[in-house]
């Protein structure tokens, strides 16, 4: 298990996604390596945590980095909005476990919007 508190993740945006991030095509982000496990029961130990996944990254990105219109990035189910292609180190995230993929230090995550036709 990684002992570092943060992971260095390179985020890339294209296909119009960058417009939501202040026109930045690449962001070097220090993403927390662990996220608390959210439970309905308030009595449970708050210290419980799990290794960061893409699901956490999406939520974290939309809070920390997103400049405008979150509805164009994140969907109701906590995933990215339909029509956004996600690549993990050059591979389609569907091949890597999608939302449950555990982030590794130095990962390169690409978000491409496929919505604009033509």
């Amino acid at each position, binding site marked *: 298990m990684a002992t570092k508190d943060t992971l260095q993740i390179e985020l890339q945006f*294209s*296909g*119009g996604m*960058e*417009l939501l991030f202040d*026109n930045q095509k690449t962001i070097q982000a220090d993403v927390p390596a662990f996220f608390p496990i959210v439970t309905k029961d308030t009595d449970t130990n708050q210290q419980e945590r799990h290794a960061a996944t893409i699901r956490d990254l999406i939520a974290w990105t939309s809070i920390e980095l997103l400049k405008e219109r979150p509805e164009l990035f994140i969907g109701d189910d906590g995933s990215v909005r*339909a*029509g956004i*292609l996600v690549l993990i180190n*050059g*591979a*389609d995230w*569907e*091949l890597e476990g999608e939302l449950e993929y555990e982030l590794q230090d130095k990962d390169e995550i*690409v978000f*491409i919007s*496929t*919505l*604009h*036709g*033509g």
Partner: protein
Amino acid sequence: MSCSIDEPTMTVAEKRAKARAVHVGFCCKCKTTRSTIIVRYAEYCDPCFLIALDSKFRTALRNARPYRVTNPENVMLAFSGGSSSRSLIHLFDVFHSLPPEVTSNKQQPKIYNDIHVCHVDESCLFEPSSLQTQIQSQGQNDSHSKEIKEEKLDGSTMEQARSIAAHYNYLFHGVRIEDIYDPEWADSHCFEAVATLVTSLPKDQLAISGEAPELLSHIHPMSPLSTSSGPPGLSSETTRRQKMSRQEKIAKLKALLAACTTLTAKETILGHIRSSLLAQLAKRADCTILALGDSATRVAIQIIGLTAIGRGFSLPHETSLESNWIQGCKVIRPLKDCLAKELDTLCRLSNLEVIEKHTARLGWTIQSKGEIKSIKQLTEEFIIGLDKDFPSTAATVCRTAAKLTPPDVQYQDKCPLCHGPVQAGVQEWKKRITVTTPPSRDDQETAKDFNDTCCSSTVGTSCCSNSNRSINSSSSCTQNSTKSHSTDEKPPLPFSSLLCYGCLTNLRDLNLKSMGSLNGDETSQFELPPYVAWTILDRVGYKSLEDYENAFVAKDTDVDPRESLREQIQEFLIASDSESEE
């Protein structure tokens, strides 16, 4: 059919691909490399994906236009700037750059002669706020020449599109969307007139009748003396009449869009303008083929969206692999089997430059607190959302619609607004399902008894006597009738009766207040571009603007021009007096 996890719509090829992926996580083609791309259950490595996509394109291109064809034709590639049409240019280039040994060995005839690229710049309709950010980000960079800076400042996509085409040595043709108001984009190559619409009833009666009124049109020749000259650099070689300035054209286009009350109507009309320009660009460059970059995803969205807005009749022309609808220009969609995701991947892997912001999204033109979505946007979300869980959605929709056969209609009878086919009998059918409006004002005048005819004859709902506000309405009604005699304008031509069903439906979202009225009290706040004006004249039977104008000069003396015109257009009128006056 139920939504089981195994999609019932998987094709044999897909099932085979799924079964073939014996080693999960490895490419289904070479089986030795870890897969990086997944397309509808099939996993590929990067190189195998590119090969597969290329062969898919070649197959589609061959189906759209058999290689047996002997005389090579010129092809126009429509390039919006997006990843799909960007892929189109790239794939065409790969296709045409056969290795020399292949070309010399097989003695294959050239399949395409010249390849042209065209682009419609829609930047004048971009959202203003983002334009400002663009200005801010470009602000520092002042070393370039003024013209280039201006291009960049207004968010123009033209130069970027031009440079992409130049990279391939393809001939480039660029046009701005507002240029649709230039006379040369009509079928007759130079048609110096625009059309305005008038309602067949006075406005106060429209409010009461509560149904879509018949719309008529006026053709207005462009004034020979245009007030302002165009900005430097835009001057043209045309000498016949002074050209409109770019600002004037933008103002006209914006006025037309402003007359549409819904986002769907705005987008639909903009779509017609865009297609009209593309067809004209192809024809003018002597291209007999116009290739569009529509992906399977986009075609599926079109199929559902067009059906929803009442354009099912022209669906085959607007979504098929090949369409011969437009006279002298075959339209092909060789990317119709490729998902948007595949084309995005192609652009990424091949480092193809795309124009990030290229298509005008008109949401900003509607003032509203909440977010307004057009039918097209809703359809887009629907299809893409469905495709996420059921990756065969787009393909299934496309396959289903591919079975539709194009209607048997003549291109001469095209709709003035969308240039699509007009279903025979639309008017009769429409008449059966709607309460028709009472006879147009002309009939009442002929009766020379307006007060009686106007306010007592019709059983219909729209006469003013029917209303509770009878005093107000009847007075204005009489007034209008009297006034209409004194207008010296040429009698109106038909309009709504010439339209296809889809456009007729779409016109319900045109603000009636923005149109003129038959009595001339109000003037139209928007003008329809020359291509529309030309098609109206053509459909009514005039060969040219002069032909139309002379028709009234000659007959003015003895016959009431309204009468003679009325005879000519009789067949187009929706409501005829014999039927509504009982």
